[in-house]
């Protein structure tokens, strides 16, 4: 009996101590190094991460090997579902998620960040390696692309598209492929970025057609005019990635269409008998770069382990980033840490002719462009 009482008393005291020190600790955690975080993380013993990439399974293995005693609960869930789940959980007062690894940043910055449902954590050791634009709010882990791709075997002298406006000409009528922008956020963001770069699009129009563009009265700028002209030029939508890839990329006889997809689709060219290549020289740009970010969940139940996980995912100082980053190093994706070298077969980051999206600005313009596309369908 006495023993029980003692136990109960000490646990109450411990709990009280934790209560008083916890807020102070959370603050400190942000400035701690991995070594300093480790003992606290070991005490927590666990970390829950929602990840848009199934490669998180490899991270679970290597993280648990490096930090024995901390169990990783890795849930593979696309960004839309992560957002829905986090909102539902937190509205019910459940704080179960430590780390989120997600894209769809225009929605994250519009619906989650202002509500404080996710929080930023930037390990001090990587700060200098990540360009400022990639860590203003949440920490970018890597950049993915949505770009114009063509068949290199059918066009050995380079891309047939030198100017985006060519896609609106009769020659390319019905020969431009895209996945449905009303169903894929990344493709919608590509169109949004084109709309936002109205001046560059107007300039490109004049360069191709030799006269200034006339924009329809109900539209705002040359970018929106491009979207309308593209859809009126019978752009073909395909919702199956595999079909989209092979329609453009397969090495075979006949004329090939061009289309927008992720640049990393070219990484399996050899395996799949394809010749996909990015149309990097197209003016004003071949497409967009968009961030995949790492964030802490609000009131993360394992705050130290959560930070340790983010620190780990940002990779070590080696050119490959070590076990924490390697699973995500594929041709066509780019690490936010510029100490991690680009894939040798891919165009170097600095030579990419792609627009980097600004999630906040994109989020504001998204609705308007979505509505424009819906009317055009």
């Amino acid at each position: 009996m006495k023993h029980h009482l003692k136990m109960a008393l000490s646990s109450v005291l411990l709990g009280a101590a934790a209560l008083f020190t916890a807020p102070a600790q959370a603050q400190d955690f942000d400035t701690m190094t991995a070594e300093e975080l480790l003992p606290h993380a070991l005490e927590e013993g666990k970390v829950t991460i929602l990840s848009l990439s199934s490669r998180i399974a490899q991270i679970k293995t290597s993280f648990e090997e490096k930090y024995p005693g901390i169990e990783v609960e890795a849930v593979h869930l696309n960004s839309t579902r992560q957002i829905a789940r986090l909102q539902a959980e937190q509205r019910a007062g459940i704080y179960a998620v430590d780390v989120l690894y997600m894209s769809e940043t225009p929605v994250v910055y519009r619906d989650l960040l202002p509500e404080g449902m996710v929080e930023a954590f930037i390990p001090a050791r990587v700060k200098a390696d990540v360009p400022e634009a990639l860590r203003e709010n949440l920490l970018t882990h890597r950049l993915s692309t949505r770009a114009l791709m063509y068949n290199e075997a059918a066009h050995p002298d380079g891309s047939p598209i030198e100017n985006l406006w060519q896609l609106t000409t009769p020659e390319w009528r019905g020969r431009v492929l895209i996945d449905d922008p009303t169903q894929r956020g990344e493709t919608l963001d590509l169109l949004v970025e084109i709309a936002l770069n109205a001046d560059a699009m107007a300039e490109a129009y004049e360069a191709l057609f030799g006269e200034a563009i006339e924009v329809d009265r109900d539209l705002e700028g040359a970018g929106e005019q491009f979207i309308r002209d593209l859809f009126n030029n019978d752009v073909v939508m395909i919702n199956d990635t595999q079909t989209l890839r092979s329609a453009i990329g397969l090495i075979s006889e006949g004329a090939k269409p061009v289309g927008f997809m992720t640049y990393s689709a070219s990484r399996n060219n050899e395996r799949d008998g394809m010749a996909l290549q990015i149309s990097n020289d197209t003016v004003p740009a071949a497409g967009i770069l968009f961030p995949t970010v790492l964030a802490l969940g609000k009131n993360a139940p394992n705050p130290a382990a959560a930070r340790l996980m983010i620190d780990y995912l940002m990779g070590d100082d080696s050119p490959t980033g070590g076990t924490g980053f390697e699973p995500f190093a594929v041709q066509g994706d780019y690490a936010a840490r510029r100490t991690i070298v680009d894939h040798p077969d891919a165009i170097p980051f600095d030579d990419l002719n792609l627009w980097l999206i600004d999630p906040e600005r994109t989020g504001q313009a998204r609705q308007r462009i979505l509505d424009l596309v819906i009317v055009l369908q």
Partner: protein
Amino acid sequence: MNMLAARAPWLARAVQSRDFVPLIMLAFTALLVVAPLTMILLATLTPDGQAAWQAVTNSPLSRNLWWRPLGNTVILGIGVTIGSVLLGGFLAWLIVLTDVPMRRFLAVMSILPFMTPSFASALAWATLFRNERIGGQAGYLASNGIPIPDWLAWGLVPTLIVLIAQFYSLAYTLIAASLSSVSGDLVESAEMAGAKRGRILFGIVLPIVTPALISGGMLAFAGAVSNFAAPALLGAPVRMQTLSTRIYGMVQTGNIERGYVLALLLMIAAAALLYFSDRFVSGRRAFVTVTGKGTRTKRFALGRWRWPLFVFATAIGVITTIVPIVVLFASSMAPRPGVLFSNWTLHYWIGQGGTQIAEGQAGIFRNPHLIDGIFTTIRLGLTVAACAMVVGLMIAYTIVRYKASPYTRLLSQLSFVPLFIPSIAMAAAYIAMYGTSLGPIPALYGTFILIVMAATANLMPYAVQSGRGVLSQLSADLEESARLTGAGPMRRMMEIIVPLAIRGIMAGGLLVFVKIVRDLSLVVLLFSASTPLLSMIAFQYASQGFMQFANAVTLLILVLCLLASFLAHLLQNKVQKWKKT
């Protein structure tokens, strides 16, 4: 009961009232279904939600956001319903009531399509019929010199065909279950009275199976209306949208309120259609046929039509079953997408890791999560099938036995609603409702129970409809006699209703099992750990671009469903012993 009458007369009156059971079931359904529905409704009343109502119903967007998708959806729904009932009904008649050769074989062929995922059938269609519309490589037929017009390659027509090819087998399952309860006595008496075959078919058999026809038709309708994969894959190249592709798109692009508004409108439209079909059924005379005397089913002699009809039925099966499965199988063996029938390899099934193929990924049977995944999937499938059938049977029983109560129609409609609730909304509502402790209910978040609850609610329509088809024929006499001899309600259920309705119950349980095992978009959101489920493993492979592995896992799911249907068949034979001799 007397004590109750003395203590609380109002309660006793309530219990004895004909509305009591329907009301209890209604309350139960409310917990499972009305909760998520309310959440959706509330979300559309916020300022964002009101803007969404405006955009959908009264703006320049309405035409493309609501009216045209609605038109396509209604055409698909009605077309698939008619096609499925005709095809499924024909096959059920052929297999259950005639002496067509190799009935077992035909029966297996007829249930397979429901187990093939619709994306596989849609991809198979595209592989064969793809034309120059999307450039690149042409489909099999076009590259053999057969020109394929756009309307046959893409859009409404192929979507309709692919969905009928899937849902006729659902109609078949329900109708066959009901037909097998047509007693040989009835047919024999009719024959003795000199009725011709056509007269027997239209005068006796057809009226008896009408409830099953309607149930099968309603499920086919709901399935077609809420199907996403087929219209998304086959409709996009010609810009065809249905309400389900629109709802999916709105959720994906962060316009969740618009998705909810569309879902609510879809529910209203579907409810209106179903209301009329419900009236149509309830207005008919009710037939009670299953009396348990159970002579062996009497079979029509087909005469010289035996073989031609066999060939015809086999052709249906081959086109709708074998072709998609072969395409799926080939694409799990072909090293290059688009080049399906050459250089086959077993690597994607059993190959070792670390080779040049597939970025060093090992075959699926070397994936340590796979075996785990198989068992977790089976456990979930069986649990949900059992729960859904218990709930479904109780609701179906209430609907059939308490026809007079005004609450019954509401119950019947409510039990149908989950088919139209987008899975993301359903999951969110379940997290919101049962995530934290609620009075006596503890917090269920992250538990297996919550997942089972959500899945049961989601698949309730299948269970209720298949229960209804069979229960509506059960004779009340038997139950009455049992009650007079002192059997309690549980005992009556277990010893009379269940054995007589076992084929319907098994059919329903199988439908639920197949649905939950194959498609887990709802459940994924509720899993709190990285619990491997087969469909999640397939999705993981697919999202990394390893389509061969994904297809191999999909085939594995198909095999699992087949095994389940085989076991269901065995069990049902064991219970219905009297049919054997």
